[in-house]
């Protein structure tokens, strides 16, 4: 079996929490911090750490604004983030194809 696809898996995305964040954002143009936190049942600190990692990798853009005098933090995938996520899924599919019995 060719181990190449497994080795190519993006380590930033491969972590469970970050993969969950990217999966949610891949299906929505943008999501607020509270929506992500509630849907993924993460703590504020945990989510902040993952978001920061994804932001540093250039996969996520974070917008801070005010709505009705309350701070609103929204996250969305950047084009490189969307590409990296699609690439990650392709690699998973490759792994399944390789190991599937003929």
């Amino acid at each position, binding site marked *: *079996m060719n181990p190449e696809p*497994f080795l190519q898996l993006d380590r930033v995305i491969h972590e469970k929490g970050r*993969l*969950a964040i990217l*999966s*949610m*954002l*891949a*299906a*929505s*143009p*943008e*999501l*607020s911090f*509270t*929506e992500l936190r*509630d*849907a*993924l049942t993460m703590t504020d600190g945990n989510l902040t750490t993952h978001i920061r990692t994804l932001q540093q990798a250039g996969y996520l853009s974070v917008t801070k604004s005010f*709505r*009705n005098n*309350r*701070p*609103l933090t*929204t996250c969305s995938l950047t084009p490189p983030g969307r590409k990296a996520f699609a690439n990650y*899924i392709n690699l*998973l*599919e490759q*792994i*399944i194809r*390789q*190991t*599937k019995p003929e």
Partner: protein
Amino acid sequence: MESNWAAEHLQVIRTLMERSALYRRALAPIMIFNGVVGLAAAALGWTLEVGSPRVFVLFWAGVSVVAIAGSFLLVRRQALKESEPFWSPPTRRVTQALLPALVAGLMISVVVLVRAGLVAGQPDNLAGVLWLPLIWVVLYGCAFHAAGFFMPRGMRMFGWGFIIGGCGLFAVGVPAWASPLDYAHGIMGGFFGGLHLAYGVYLYFTEHRRNAT
């Protein structure tokens, strides 16, 4: 081994992507509000003896405006409380799914409003338009069934309740003992009041339990 792991990963991704597209606002207050409005309106319509087709359509159109406006305010309040945008992508998807069947109901109502009493031999009371509440019920069920694809699973069952109930009553016909007035307002109160209220109470307890776990 790796194949299983990768397949499980893809399944998790798929589940999360589906969850992201779901409408997640608390529905219990909206359902309970609509149930109370429906029951109160049915009682009022029956007490005031709203029996002319035109007045019946106008009366229930007014009730639907109150129900929609109230639901809108409840959703907006939830969005403000959570510091989230009101017109979010899931809200947009749910609205788009609801619209076709609701617009069809509106158009049929406008036709009844314009044509009621004009057909020769048709009495100017609810006896001639007893199909109308059932049409509203079935179309409302279709609307919620369509929206149910972007909402928690119970919503599609709720839609089916309206569709099957409405079609079933079509098949059974009007019971001999019921007057057109009782029947028409009874249908509206039973479905738009009773069903909403029952589903709202069910959601109230299940949403609380889900939030607690």
